[in-house]
């Protein structure tokens, strides 16, 4: 399947990461799963994946990803499938309070 047929999804980023994506608040990428979306982000913005995931590939503990309002930790994690037109929010968790 070429990228033209992949689901397109809008990914929103917190302020701390916007410098990495050209000082925008969101970008449009494609992928079948969250993992593929993160790989696509890494392709477009090299180094961004390391902000979200450890070297081992797992999601950083204080990073939350919400797909259409649901925390992916309670779905299928990075293997959660995405739908065309979906909205993905990368957020830092409430830590320390």
């Amino acid at each position, binding site marked *: 399947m070429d990228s033209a047929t992949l689901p397109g999804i809008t990914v929103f980023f917190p302020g*701390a990461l916007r410098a990495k994506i050209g000082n925008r608040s969101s970008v449009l990428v494609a992928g079948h799963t969250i993992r593929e979306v993160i790989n696509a982000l890494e392709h477009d913005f090299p*180094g961004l994946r390391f*902000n*979200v995931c450890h*070297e*081992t*590939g797992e999601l950083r503990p*204080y990073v939350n990803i919400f797909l259409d309002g649901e925390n992916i930790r309670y779905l299928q994690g990075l293997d959660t499938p995405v739908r065309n037109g979906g909205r993905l929010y990368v957020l*830092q968790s409430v830590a320390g309070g």
Partner: protein
Amino acid sequence: MGRTYVPGTVVLSVGTKRGLFLLTSRDREKWEIRSTAFSTGRVYHAILDQRAGCRLFATDNGDIFGAFLRYSDDFGETWHEPKQGIQFPESSGQKLVNIWVIEPGRPDEPETVYAGVDPASLWVSNDRGETWELNAGLANHPTRERWGPGFGGLCLHSIVPDPSHASRMWVGISAVGCMRTDDGGRNWVFVNKNVRADFLPMVYPEFGQCIHRLVQHPTRPDILYQQNHCGVYKSTNAGDDWIDIQQNLPSRFGFPMALDVHHPETVFVVVEDQDGRNNVGEQFTVYRTQDGGERWEALTRGLPGGPGVRLGVLRHAMCTDTEDPCGVYVGTNTGQLFASRDGGDSWQLIADFLPPIYAVTAVVVG
């Protein structure tokens, strides 16, 4: 054109729990404090490298989005990430926790910079910090699976490249001890003989010591000093064995250590109450030896004392400058920065209300 400083200006890079500050002075009496654009991350270490240009390196240990090394070529106004930063290979199964130290290489290798991280490993860049490579000799050391962390993690915090021996280097790892390579990093040996590990069943093991800081004599490269969890030590044979120079110090426990490059028998430490991790008694004190550890004197003039004084100093939060008499700078984990411009004889508070201070390094602008 970015910010510059006139030659002779002393620049202190002060890494804190919330960002990096620069303090500058022409006379080491009046200081200007400046925030940098680097204002949120935990800066365990920062250093201004003048060997090839003027590049400021800092560690950005973020609470949420990972640990990064960054550099600035305009004294902190803008920051850049390396093209290939410090990241473990996915196949290693290792995860970067914190970057603890950045150490410029030898004077004759101006493009080379080293970094030490948790989990304990040594990284090298041969292009002024643009790309980084893991030292495989240390990463694959045969004892590695038996290394255990100290309270601050399994951190490689001290790097001493020998300027007189291109293939020799020492590193300090908590709680593993001191290690040395004599073949450019292919092989590493433990050099911990006679160093105590009071928290282990065997007090003098081959490794497992909790070294806190390691410094080298600038003109006699086989002389090393270390502040350890369990005492202060000196080696006169490149670490082959160590001499306890605790002498009259009131505690074995402390973190930082620095020496006077013009009078290298002069060494400074800040020993602490081991349980409270702050000054012993009610007087904040820097201790100085001027005879290579035969005797220590308490330096208190200008330093605070009294019932409410409980100051702690972390491992990278004390340094000297290269002037003569040397400046000595001590940052506390409650945000005070003290300076002496007479080799420790007297002190003044040059900054207060900073975030907890993790590291202080000094450079005289050339």
